[in-house]
């Protein structure tokens, strides 16, 4: 199968600032792909280039087989976009705006069904300025999916949410089966909860990529065995524990066996690359 998104050597400069330094990405159809990185890493720059909203300085980009530098209406109809910042406050209701956006597409979904899916059925007749921040984002998603896109871009969709709202938003994204999703986030748990694959971006470079469970060599990383009187890093923690048990003649005081968490891996990746 052809990649939904394929990026090679993507470079972008804003004046003196180099925002992207040779980004490579390959996103398969149907997968949820997360670009994870701290603020200013280049996440928005990357997705906006893929969306056809920004120009690039170098690199090749193919999104659904099309170079987004020259977006066509047909290509636009196959993609859905949820921007990082969208704060328009028009005096229209949720239902009115979703219905209106549906008319732009050749094969739109049923607007009421979409409103239901994003969890705004109870707010369908509320005007936009009356929505909460979380409800606004749900509306943004509704507008992003009403055209029934093959590929959905979500740029930091849950920034500013409380944990409860974030969990409910994740359920919404999990329900978008069949749609390829490119999500950016600076929340590690979000990438872990939603993504089939994650790319970590720091200072405009992808520093690690893969399954969130094995990211940065996490699965194969050495385990740390720690107990009351010591600590060792080892590839064979079970053997170490057996050895310790023999030495103590039974229970080992304050015994723990740990592997780096995704967070440890992520923080290590960011730190390694943050130096000059």
């Amino acid at each position, binding site marked *: 199968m052809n990649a939904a998104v394929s990026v090679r050597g993507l470079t972008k400069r804003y004046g003196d600032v180099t925002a992207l330094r040779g980004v490579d990405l390959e996103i398969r159809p149907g997968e949820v792909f997360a670009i994870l990185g701290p603020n200013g890493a280049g996440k928005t720059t990357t997705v906006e280039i893929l969306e056809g909203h920004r120009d690039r300085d170098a690199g090749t980009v193919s999104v659904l087989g099309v170079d987004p530098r020259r977006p066509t209406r047909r290509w636009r109809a196959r993609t859905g*976009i949820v921007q990082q910042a969208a704060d328009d406050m*028009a*005096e229209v209701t949720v239902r009115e705006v979703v219905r209106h956006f549906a008319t732009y*597409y*050749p094969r739109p979904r049923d607007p009421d069904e979409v409103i239901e899916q994003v969890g705004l059925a109870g707010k369908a007749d509320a005007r936009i300025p009356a929505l909460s921040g979380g409800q606004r984002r749900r509306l943004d998603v509704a507008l992003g999916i009403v055209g029934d896109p093959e590929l959905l871009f979500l740029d930091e969709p849950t920034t500013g949410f409380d944990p409860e709202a974030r969990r409910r938003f994740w359920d919404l994204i999990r329900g978008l089966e069949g749609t390829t999703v490119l999500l950016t986030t600076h929340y590690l748990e979000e990438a872990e909860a939603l993504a089939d694959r994650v790319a970590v971006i720091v200072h405009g470079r992808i520093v690690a990529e893969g399954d969130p469970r094995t990211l940065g060599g996490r699965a194969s990383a050495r385990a740390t065995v720690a107990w009351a009187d010591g600590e060792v890093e080892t590839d064979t923690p079970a053997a170490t524990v057996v050895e310790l048990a023999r030495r103590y003649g039974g229970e080992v005081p304050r015994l723990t066996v740990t592997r780096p968490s995704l967070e440890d891996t992520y923080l290590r990746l960011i730190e390694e690359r943050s130096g000059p």
Partner: protein
Amino acid sequence: MTTTDTARGLPSALEIGAGRALFELRQFFRERDQVIFTFSLPIVLLVLFGSIFRGRFEGSGVTVAQVYTAALIGAGVLSVSLQNLGVSIAVEREQGVLKRLAGTPMPRSAYFLGKILSVMVMSVAEVTLLLTVAVVLYGLRLPDDVTGWLTFGWVGILGLAAGSLLGIAASSLPRSAKSATAVITLPFIVLQFISGVFIPFTELPGWLVGVASVFPLRWMCQGFRAVFLGEGGAALEVTGSYELDRVALVLGAWVIGGLVLCLLTFRWKSRRDR
């Protein structure tokens, strides 16, 4: 392009444009501030001025109410076109509405079509209300010949076209959504003062008349005076004539100039994202 796109199942720009016009109108008339400042203000002013100044101009039989009606029709048309579009598009740009639209398969022409159609509907409503007030309260006589209505038509259409294009171009001036109203409205109020809307043109110093003559509003008001004041009023003009040929020339030039300005300055993105 539209035909091939439609053949492939994409809705036409005309369809979407008409839908956008309805959407825009609905939005506009729900926005209280906008309705008060751009739509109702000329009507309120007509009621006010017409009640305060009840006299006639000496020797011409022209009533002050007639002069204000002609002037406020000009100002009203620019209000719903230039001022309305200048502010609303600036806000839409800064709040990311334009960027959101640019990310959908909506043809860009449909956006402008929607703006123009909605502004046309607003102008017709605005002018109808102004005329109704003038006829009912001040006994304004509507033109009784075809020539009068024709002049009314072309002055209105050229003025509306120039105002809409200039509004779209002016929307690039404000640096933020918050400043849009001030940046667009203040110069528009000044323009109304120097174009003879509030103060009769004959009372203004020559250099101000010169400045005003560069802009479309003075000529729109003059054209509408030709329609509603009749021959008797021509003597009140600066040159003793309505100069309809110059009205057409200046407004036509602004339509072309406005179109060029739009093509040169229109941006779908805000200053923040380039």
